[in-house]
């Protein structure tokens, strides 16, 4: 009986140490999800995959339509570039340059025909996202929603 109890204690302590987020060691890979969204003032439409984000964006923008054009999920290591091709000869390059348990430092660049039109360095909270927008597309604008999750 005592032996079984001892085993339970050891296993519990091991699980607790391994799974407790405060004690978990930071991984060196970050799952980076990029969603390319077309926002416009056309007929009211919200893509079912954007319901979580549309409500937030709706509080800031006056767009009535949010369409998901493309989504890409990448597992990136430190300094590993993730490239997403965008409409209009544009591309998005996202590179995690420092990964910690709580925050991810990203270098993000948006290029058009090879020229950098916008670049930024951000510190993103783990499991959260940032939206970058601005390039004109059709009758609206492109938005890039980038989220990071340390693995």
């Amino acid at each position, binding site marked *: 009986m005592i032996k079984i109890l001892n085993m339970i204690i050891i296993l519990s302590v091991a699980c607790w140490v391994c799974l407790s987020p405060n004690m978990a060691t930071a991984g060196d890979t970050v799952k980076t999800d990029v969603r390319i969204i077309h926002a416009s003032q056309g007929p009211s439409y919200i893509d079912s995959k954007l319901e979580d984000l549309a409500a937030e964006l709706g509080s800031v923008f006056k767009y009535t339509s949010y369409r998901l054009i493309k989504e890409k999920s990448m597992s990136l290591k430190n300094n590993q570039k993730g490239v997403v091709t965008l409409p209009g000869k544009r591309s998005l390059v996202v590179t995690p340059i420092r990964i910690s348990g709580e925050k991810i430092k990203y270098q993000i660049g948006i290029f058009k025909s090879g020229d*950098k039109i916008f670049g*930024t360095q951000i510190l993103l909270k783990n499991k959260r996202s940032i939206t970058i*927008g601005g390039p004109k597309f059709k009758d609206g604008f492109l938005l890039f929603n980038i989220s990071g999750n340390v693995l």
Partner: protein
Amino acid sequence: MKKTCTTYDKKIISEFVDNELSSEENKKISEHIKTCPICKNISEEYIQMSNAFVQRTSIEVEKINTGSLGENVLKQIKRKENGFSKKVFDYFSPKLYLKIASLVAIMVVSLIYFQAQPVNIIGPSAIVNSVDGNASSIMILETEKSKHTIIWFSET
């Protein structure tokens, strides 16, 4: 000056009165007392002292209410059993399996708590360290509800 017996001392007489001697010695002294007035007086003194002691003790014992004494003792035991100190004592008593079970329960609860923690939404989702490129204007916004960070730029 008191007369003393040359055959037996007071100690032997005392032991005789208390019936602590062997039957042979007892017999000898018993015979001696019949003929020796000194030892006879001493033995009578001792017998009187012994009787007085027994009598006094029995009077004091009779004063004690044994019925209420028992009740009081039982009451005190009950009070101790139900008291806070008893509970505290029981909690810290060396019942190993209870301690282990408590430890495991605490660990499991804390584990569930940590794993179920929602994403921390206090503060902006991202901090913009720097921006560059050929954008003509840049705005940094934050939504009210979940503090979602938005960067808006205008292409040249």
